[in-house]
């Protein structure tokens, strides 16, 4: 009886797996239509879902727009874009497995992602195999985008870019602020970012005071860290580098609870409306982040088109990462500029260019000194604040050329 049950279960399992594998097979390509398969390494499950699923959906809209425009032009041929997404489960092991799958099983030549500190785990697979990678975010830990990653570009966004924008905004909006405290997740990035931020702040006549206040990435309750920030009395403002919406939300809430209403500048991509969900409206006075606002009249056309589609499908409160779509756009521009699908040729072409078209308009290709490699696409940044209870763009910051 037991053997019979086991046999039935095994046969059932085989049938289910076979059915799933058939469902999972890519659709047959229509005759005469050429396709460029672009891999995506993203955390579709796990703790990075909140960032990566929206980014994946937004990249699909960018792919749709490219395909509606006829596709990517290479030597008279048009290539439709097909995104091949592999889930990292928001783990380093998952990143390695995803990179292996895309490089060796799917045999893609262009990859979007992974993001930030996850990126290094894909480098050891993609770089030796000459697969061109466009990471979606960079917090400047070793192996993300630097001299050791010849096939990785920073196509999305990164700490250095948001810092430049946040500091320029801070200087322009709060000219009396001369000293700031520093707050950041303890994820390996402060060792790199504190010296960079110190330099960027000094260029605007602002100095860091007190010891950097660092928190573990898993922290949920921030009152102890808020108390520590509040104790740095000589600081005129808090400068936060990196982190997630819950981090900035809980910290601002705790600081306001302590009666600290100093300006709080977040050099991180967090929508004010989402922070408001945690803090309430009143706490967000003098809080600014680097984020995109649906309906912003100054939004560049391609970005606007993607955001309009996002809002139509997912609603106005949806997280707007928009880094993966930018990576895809740069891949398209790079391939068309090189007129080749060879990743090495595209890489060399991008390295030779000073500017590339992005969904934000023209952006500089730069980063030799700061990153050790000219593989950084510095796109304009939008600063967001809460104005009259509504999230509003406080201005677009042109980053210029990042050395």
């Amino acid at each position: 009886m037991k053997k019979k049950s086991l046999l039935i279960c095994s046969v059932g399992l085989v049938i289910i797996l076979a059915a799933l594998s058939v469902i999972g097979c890519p659709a047959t390509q229509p005759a005469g239509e050429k396709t460029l398969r672009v891999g995506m390494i993203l955390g579709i499950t796990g703790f990075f879902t909140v960032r990566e699923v929206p980014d994946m959906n937004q990249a699909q809209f960018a792919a749709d727009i490219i395909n509606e425009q006829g596709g990517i032009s290479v030597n008279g041929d048009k290539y439709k874009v097909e995104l091949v997404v592999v889930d990292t489960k928001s783990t380093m092991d998952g990143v390695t497995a995803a990179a292996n799958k895309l490089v060796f099983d799917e045999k893609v030549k262009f990859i979007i992602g992974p993001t930030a500190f996850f990126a290094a785990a894909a480098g050891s697979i993609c770089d030796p195999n000459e697969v061109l990678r466009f990471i979606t975010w960079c917090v400047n830990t070793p192996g993300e985008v630097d001299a050791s990653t010849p096939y990785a570009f920073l196509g999305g966004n990164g700490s250095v870019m948001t810092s430049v924008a946040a500091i320029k905004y801070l200087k322009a909006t709060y000219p009396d602020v001369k000293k700031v405290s520093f707050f950041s997740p303890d994820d390996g990035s402060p060792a790199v970012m504190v010296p960079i931020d110190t330099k960027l702040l000094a260029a605007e006549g602002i100095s860091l005071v007190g010891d950097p206040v660092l928190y573990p990435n898993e922290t949920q309750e921030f009152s102890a860290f808020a108390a520590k920030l509040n104790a740095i009395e000589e600081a005129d403002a808090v400068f936060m580098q990196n982190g997630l919406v819950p981090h900035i939300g809980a910290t601002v809430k705790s600081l306001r609870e302590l009666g600290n209403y100093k300006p709080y500048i977040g050099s991180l991509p967090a929508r004010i409306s989402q922070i408001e969900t945690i803090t309430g409206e009143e706490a967000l006075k003098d809080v600014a982040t680097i984020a995109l606002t649906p309906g912003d009249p100054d939004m560049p056309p391609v970005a606007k088109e993607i955001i309009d589609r996002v809002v139509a499908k997912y609603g106005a409160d949806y997280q707007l990462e928009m880094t993966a779509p930018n990576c895809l756009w740069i891949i398209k521009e790079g391939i068309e500029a090189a007129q080749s699908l060879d990743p090495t040729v595209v890489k060399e072409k991008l390295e030779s260019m000073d500017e590339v078209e992005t969904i934000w308009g023209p952006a500089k290709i730069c980063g030799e000194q700061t990153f050790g490699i000219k593989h950084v696409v510095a796109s304009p940044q939008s600063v967001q604040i809460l104005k009259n209870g509504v999230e509003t763009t406080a201005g677009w910051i042109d980053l210029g050329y990042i050395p």
Partner: protein
Amino acid sequence: MALVVATVTNLLILSSMYIVVALGFAFLFNMLGIPNFAHGAIYMLGGYIGLALISAVGINQWVALILTAVVVGAFGLFLERFCFRPFVGDFNRIVMICVAVIVILQTGVNIIAGTQILSLPPFALGILKVGPASVSYERIVTFAIGAVLLGIIIWFVNRTKWGKQMQAISQDRLGASLQGINVHRVSALASFIGCALAAIAGCLIGAYLNLGPFMGDFMLVKVLILAILAGAGSISGIFIAGLILGTLDSALPVLISGAAGDAIAVGIVVVLMLIRPQGFFGHEVEM
């Protein structure tokens, strides 16, 4: 001075938060010896159900808090009957079942609401200022509910027939059964209470902080530390253990920068366990 006052305030509030979250786990673990590792996921589920009742159904949030406790408590009955009862005394299988429950709940919530930043509306508004101390009423409410729940549970365990039966099961399951205690019924009640407490904690913390599919993972670690420090069979030990953990988590970030604080806190807990392996007030248990 302001930093000292803020740290002491944080210590009390954080301790009460941990106690609220840990109470449900400790109840099941200390009373019945069932290590419900899915407690964090159930705590998360409670927060989301509370939010759904408030925002989607439009129920008053205090009523929603009670309803959530009942709904999640009922889920606790299901867990006890179909997940825990068949495997009582089998640690490996209990762990496997809990892992399955965690994955199912987290993945389910992640698919439905994982991309959104959500939070329950605050249970109280405003900030109380007393001298240099400043604390939101929201956190005071959490503190008060934690204290009241702890008091009720201690009273329940020590003063009621059900509580005494639970203590008997905690000390000797077979012996309690031979004395005529309906072990299954008592276990079901304990599971109901444990899960209901997790749900209340999920709603309170989900209002003060925010909701996320993985919010329970972080808390589970704290809860495990707390329950083990308190010791098997001890509910009142939760109070002392909560204070110790709250003190470590409030003071260490102020004294030590970054992630090292967490590691040191856990290191101190390990030392405490070496000194007193049975916890502060508990007795040794066999899994």
